[in-house]
């Protein structure tokens, strides 16, 4: 029992101090009818060495990193994480701390979150950002709720090209809140259809939600959505599923977004089979008191020295209870720290440069794939590092063949878009070298796939 310090002598001495005879009697308030007296049916305790061996065995059952040339994106992106990120995250002062309720001994966490909030504002072009949320999908759902709250409206226009996970999560969150969902179709170029949007918008619309990039990798024309939405006083909610794009493309803030949410996994978080990731949430400064989630603010101590505290807690559940802006009572503290460290390393030069690498590699892959007989790019709106490919037959079959050549060629679209059975989503990042791309193209051309 290496994690529990008590020996039998300790136990007896402590029981004695308490004034009872047995451990049993400490549980006297638990009625015997509710006791579970049989031992739990779990594997026996294991030594650390055995446990690690078992874990390594399980992990090896997964076909992860190194083994395959992978072109998987669709909401989670393989980017290189410099070693210093994990080194700093592994400092126990960070990762074994709780929520910074006692600011005098939590300035590390608090200052880092303040820096995170600032970075997110800078990146999205917005005035205020919270301390982070569970992930892109749940942030997006919170954004929809907030848009309804501030507009006091209940109709929401959701782009069909928004990440399906985000769409589903929005619907789950709004399930019993009497919302009205309206589908915004996309056009032949893979971007939202502006004419449809004009038709759908009215004075009852709380918000329009679009992806940037959207699920097809397309950088939507935010300026147009913004203009149209604002004509009806609806809010523009922008969901960024690959935030590295913001290193290269105009920020949603400059294009008129009211709320910008997104998935921060690209910024220094491992793929980790889908989580924990990092939801970011930014808005206009005027909406600050309607933000969900935790906020850190600057203040001073008794001597006038700068310090940071959790603030505007009156929005939150522990004060406002059922009137709170959200039921969330945590953030993704350590994930936000990872992103802060990652962004600090890349910075003003590195982030755009990395984004350009991604863009250039994706361009190269697009051009080469489009040149393969039978393959085409069905959408022609601008994309970042991800794009849709149309193949000569069912995408599942194509991907299966590629897999046999140790290539994970992308994500088939048919589970979400049954009419797109021949299409799949291909993502190319800085982790894919030219040789990987060429091998992919060769596999497609050779007809093996």
């Amino acid at each position, binding site marked *: 029992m290496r994690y529990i310090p008590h020996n039998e002598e300790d136990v007896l001495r402590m029981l004695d101090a308490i004034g009872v005879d047995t451990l049993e009697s400490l549980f006297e308030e638990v009625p015997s009818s509710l006791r579970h007296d049989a031992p739990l049916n779990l594997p026996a305790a*294991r030594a650390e060495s055995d446990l690690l061996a078992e874990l390594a065995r399980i992990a090896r059952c*997964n076909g992860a990193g190194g083994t395959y040339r992978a072109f998987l994106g669709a909401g989670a992106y393989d980017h290189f994480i410099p070693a210093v990120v994990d080194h700093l995250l592994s400092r126990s002062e960070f990762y074994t701390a709780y929520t910074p309720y006692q600011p005098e001994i939590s300035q590390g966490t608090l200052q880092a979150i303040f820096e995170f909030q*600032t970075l997110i504002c800078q990146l999205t072009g917005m005035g205020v950002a919270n301390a982070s949320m569970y992930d892109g999908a749940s942030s997006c759902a919170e954004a929809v709720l907030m848009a309804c709250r501030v507009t006091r409206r209940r109709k929401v226009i959701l782009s069909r090209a928004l990440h399906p996970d985000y769409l589903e999560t929005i619907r789950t969150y709004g399930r019993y809140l009497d919302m009205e969902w309206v589908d915004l179709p996309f056009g032949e170029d893979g971007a939202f259809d502006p004419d449809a949007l004009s038709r759908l918008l009215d004075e009852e619309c709380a918000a329009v939600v679009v992806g940037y990039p959207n699920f097809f990798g397309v950088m939507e024309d935010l300026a147009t959505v913004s203009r149209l939405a604002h004509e009806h006083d609806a809010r523009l909610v922008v969901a960024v599923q690959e935030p590295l794009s913001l290193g290269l493309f105009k920020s949603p803030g400059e294009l008129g977004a009211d709320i910008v949410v997104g998935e921060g996994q690209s910024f220094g978080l491992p793929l980790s089979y889908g989580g924990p990731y990092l939801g970011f949430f930014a808005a206009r400064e005027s909406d600050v008191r309607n933000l969900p989630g935790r906020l850190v603010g600057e203040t001073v101590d008794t001597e006038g020295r700068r310090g940071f505290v959790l603030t505007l807690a009156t929005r939150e559940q522990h004060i406002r209870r059922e009137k709170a802006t*959200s039921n969330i009572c945590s953030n*993704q503290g350590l994930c936000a720290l990872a992103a802060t460290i990652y962004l600090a390393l890349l*910075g003003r030069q590195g982030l755009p440069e990395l984004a350009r690498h991604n863009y250039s590699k994706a361009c190269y892959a697009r051009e080469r794939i489009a040149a393969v007989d039978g393959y085409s790019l069905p959408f022609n709106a601008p994309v970042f590092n991800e794009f849709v490919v149309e193949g000569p037959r069912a995408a599942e079959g194509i991907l299966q063949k590629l897999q046999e050549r140790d290539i994970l060629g992308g994500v088939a679209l048919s589970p979400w878009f049954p009419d797109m059975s021949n299409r799949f989503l291909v993502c190319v990042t800085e982790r894919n070298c030219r040789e990987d791309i060429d091998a992919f193209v060769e596999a497609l051309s050779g007809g093996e796939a």
Partner: protein
Amino acid sequence: LNEKLLFEHSRPGRCGYDLPPLDVPSAEPPEALVRDDIPGFPELSEIDVARHFTRLSSWNYGVDSGFYPLGSCTMKYNPKVNEVACRLPGFADLHPHTPQKLAQGALALMYELQEDLKEISGFDGITLQPGAGAHGELAGMLMVRAWQQARGAQRNKVLIPDTAHGTNPATAALCGYEVVPVPSENGVVTVETIEGLMDDGVAALMITNPNTLGLFETYIADVCRVVHERGGLVYCDGANLNALLGIARPGDMGIDVMHFNLHKTFSTPHGGGGPGAGPVGVSAELEPFLPVPVVDRTAEGYFLDWDRPHSIGRMKGFYGHFGVLVRAWTYIRAMGAEGLRRTAEMAVLNANYVRARLESSYHLPYVARSLHEVVFSDRNLGGGCKTLDLAKRLIDYGFHPPTIYFPLVVSGAIMIEPTESESQETLDEFCEAMEAIAREASEDPGLLKDAPRLTRLGRLDETRAARRPRLRWQP
């Protein structure tokens, strides 16, 4: 020493990240789409970044720094092997869209964790998807509502005791429910109270057991019976499950749905506020409503089951905080059945030991046997000192303060949860500090009111922060 903000350290032209040479032709998007610059973004070299965050960390207090008796948060030791486990190649680099045939290890681990949590809690179904306790709560209450709706019931209220966590009412509201407060008696919910409140507008009771006073809800079985008889369901906030591991199972008590806090009970690190994980356990009746996907198996292997027509839907992207799940699985395997029971026993022993030692110095508002935590109040504190002063003074003694001013039913609450990780010596040192502070309060209250003195910063002006919010750095 002070440490500037990242942005204040910045110097044009610095960068802590080098890219390999671009091995394809350079391309550029249409000019109209390209952003000029990211104004204010920092520019730093690797050493700047390493030092900055190393220094910041030195102003934090973690479980590895010392005793962290934050009530209701279960700040137990986070074994280091768990951190190795979740970083293993095959876990950390596994893309969530990896074909399931190539993710059998991850799926097997999730499946096993589901089974383990069922066994530990006595529930029939589990979702691993929610990202935190409050998120699990939301999933749970959405299932409650879906179940009620499936039966055609029109119930718009939930009962919430005064000993509940603040998330409970907020969660109920998110599900479109009205909140009806339930007064506790002698710290627990009685059958009579519930009988009085439980009408056919009530969808559910949300209860915490052991509750936030550290007390076992002795009447829980009868309370559940009454709620069920009148068509309601019982939601349990599982934050305090640590006290019951291997002792009693919420599923056996009549509870219908409960979230787990893996970051509390199963020792995944709190990370300065997240990420956690909030799996939810449900009875067989609620199983059809679980969020999608659920991990299941056939003879051919493990798979993600999406085909669940009654599901409330998806709570977030992908399948759960997998990295956190790996840690929890590792912890459960390290402890085994015996270790988990020992955990509950030692956690309760520690709380009662602290209680026994401090009863004579601090006012104890509820006298029923404590389980994993004990709540005192500041009523007997001398010199006009309040709970906040005590908390700040404890910092000078090298301890993290307990949870304060919660639960709300105790005025000036001091909520101490030592967890099983702590040895008697540590508890003794803490109790001695508490006793010393009680004396100081009478003899020299300034020591408390001016605390902390040994930290880099003194008490911070929270009012000012809220009145004139500065939520980001500006040049």
